[in-house]
């Protein structure tokens, strides 16, 4: 009953005209950037983060959250119609979605993706609603040692799941931690790596770094390739799947929802990995695995469901522990902090209107997304026809405005350009940006909790092993780190490895 009355409070916040408007703006922009290749949810959210400075925390967080789960809906459209994923979580949808489009079944593919996304998105919100209070109550017992070890585990999972070399990903995570330390030390007030620059005293900005690594770097990489792409002129009429489609998709949707939600909760997990795992699972369970890759609707329904459920599940560690499980949630953490709100176990008690308002807005957002992605699908198809050579100057401009708007400093624009070139070079040489960004956000928290734990234990490192939760996290992290050395695990990791964010 308490949950229901809290949800009632949430709806009263989410239904306020301003919040409804920002919810719509969020899901609309999310679908838009999901449809457009070349800009993902991370870059879009960092671009719009400064805009939230001028609005209430509720409206700001509702909009940013909408962009994230909205992009999961939109991402499938390009995968199915153009065979280019709009964002990373829809990569796997290309395999069967595009084949369905080639067979004249683009409509049911898009329809099933949207319906599956709606079911998963709504189920994830229900899960979040019931699980978050329990998690928050549990998280109150966490001390600095537990927080430190959980963050180490989160970073380790992200590193483990990264494409290519684990060692390179670890190097990036180390670099991210160090970049996060730039500025005034919160305990001793000593300036670190500021080189006499006043702009560095507050530390490096998250938005310029993310926009550089994910926005500018992506554009620079695209500039090296031929900019034109061919759009599959598919017939997208008849969006409703057939009876047979439903029969084949019910299981994948149910499994994708549970799998995605659970993976979303795990630190380091997220929408991308859940979509890949759902595809692998459905192929394994299918009586006709040979149809996968040739237009099997299960290959669309499962992954598209899983990535939406994961997007919802990812809110749990952020809202209840204050720990972002992936880069997108790291950006949301930034948005919370900018508004003077600290997510964590006390959020539900101290800011119930914000917490439940965001949860309720996700119900509303999912309904809006169903409307945006079913009857209005034709609009997004038209948008796909705008050539990239026309789009990229505009995306560049939005990045420039976004970086400047954070603190109205030209320095941030230079910082973004610097990280843009760095991100482009990192892509070239196989170093991934996601571990760097998550470590950058977690770095200061990691340091604070380590120092607090050591001060509490009077310098005894045993504190991390004496506490059960901390010990479990560290053992899990250690096992993951040594697993690439074992050939069977290495093969499994390679299969699962993909790029987050």
């Amino acid at each position, binding site marked *: 009953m308490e949950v229901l009355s809290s949800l009632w409070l949430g709806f009263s916040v989410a239904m306020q005209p301003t919040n409804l408007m920002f919810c719509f703006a969020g899901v609309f922009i999310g679908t838009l950037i999901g449809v457009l290749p070349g800009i993902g949810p991370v870059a879009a959210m960092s671009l719009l983060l*400064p*805009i939230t400075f*001028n609005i209430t925390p509720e409206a700001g967080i509702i909009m940013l959250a909408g962009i994230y789960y909205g992009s999961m809906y939109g991402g499938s459209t390009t995968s199915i119609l153009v065979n280019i994923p709009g964002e990373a979580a829809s990569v796997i949808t290309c395999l069967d979605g595009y084949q369905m489009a080639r067979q004249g079944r683009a409509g049911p593919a898009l329809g099933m993706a949207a319906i599956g996304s709606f079911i998963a998105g709504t189920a994830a919100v229900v899960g979040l609603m019931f699980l978050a209070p329990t998690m928050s109550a549990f998280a109150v017992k966490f001390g600095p040692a537990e927080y430190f070890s959980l963050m180490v585990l989160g970073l380790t999972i992200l590193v483990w799941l990264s494409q290519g*070399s684990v*060692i*390179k990903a*670890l*190097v990036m995570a*180390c*670099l991210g*931690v*160090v970049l996060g*330390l730039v500025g005034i*030390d919160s*305990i*001793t007030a*000593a300036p*670190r*790596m500021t080189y006499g620059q006043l702009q560095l005293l507050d530390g490096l900005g998250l938005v310029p770094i993310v926009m550089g690594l994910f926005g*500018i770097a992506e*554009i*620079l990489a695209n*500039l*090296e390739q031929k*900019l034109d792409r061919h759009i599959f002129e598919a017939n997208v009429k008849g969006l409703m799947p057939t009876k047979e489609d439903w029969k084949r998709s019910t299981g994948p949707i149910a499994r994708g929802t549970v799998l995605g939600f659970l993976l979303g909760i795990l630190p380091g997990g997220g929408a991308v990995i859940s979509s890949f795992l759902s595809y692998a699972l459905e192929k394994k369970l299918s009586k006709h695995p040979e149809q996968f890759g040739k237009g099997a609707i299960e290959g669309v329904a499962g992954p598209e469901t899983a990535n939406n459920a994961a997007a919802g599940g990812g809110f749990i560690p952020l809202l209840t522990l204050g720990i972002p499980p992936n880069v997108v949630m790291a950006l949301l953490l930034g948005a919370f902090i900018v508004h003077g709100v600290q997510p964590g176990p006390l959020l539900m008690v101290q800011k119930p209107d914000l917490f439940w308002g965001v949860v309720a807005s996700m119900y509303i957002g999912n309904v809006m997304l169903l409307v945006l992605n079913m009857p209005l699908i034709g609009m997004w198809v038209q948008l796909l026809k705008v050539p990239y*050579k*026309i789009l*990229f*100057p*505009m995306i*560049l*401009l*939005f990045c*420039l*405005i976004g970086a*400047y*708007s954070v603190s*109205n400093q*030209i320095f941030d*624009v*230079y910082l973004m*350009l610097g990280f*843009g*070139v760095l991100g*482009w070079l990192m892509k*070239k*040489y*196989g*170093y991934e940006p996601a571990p760097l960004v998550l470590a950058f956000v977690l*770095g200061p928290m*990691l*340091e604070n909790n*380590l*120092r607090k734990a*050591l*001060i509490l234990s*009077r*310098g*005894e*490192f045993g504190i991390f092993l004496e506490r059960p939760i901390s010990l479990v996290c560290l053992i899990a992290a250690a096992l993951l780190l040594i697993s690439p050395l074992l050939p069977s695990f290495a093969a499994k990791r390679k299969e699962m490895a993909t790029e987050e964010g």
Partner: protein
Amino acid sequence: MAPRLRADTFTAALMLALAIYIAYEGHDLGLGRASDPGSGYIQFWTGIIMAGLSAILLVQSVLPSADKSGIGAPFADIRWGKVLYVTALLVAYTVALEYLGFIITTFILLVVLFKTVEPQGWGVSLIGSALTTGVAWLVFVYWLGQQLPSGSLLSGD
């Protein structure tokens, strides 16, 4: 012929040098004691871990069994032309922004990007640039209340 310096060797050496510098800076800040860690404690140890990892990468890159994807010469696969050109344009835009202001600088940047990167006709370039600049100004400055530079040369600041 195999390149004299492999890309992976080059980047690993660069990371190693960076890690040593990070550890050195951390040490300089002060490590403190385990019971009261100083400002440089985490930085120092992160630098040391990073140096160890980079050293492993360095050794891996020179082994005969090195990953074939990283054996090209450091700058062999890079098509610098467009990337350098666009980066230079963006730096120039950033420099000019404070002097000429958002509207003029943005319009010029967009015309140059439209006209030169994947060349468009003058009509598309000029109309596209004017429309994009106008819409961006309306949305960000007028509607969302962002403060974008108005230009010190024009305002006489």
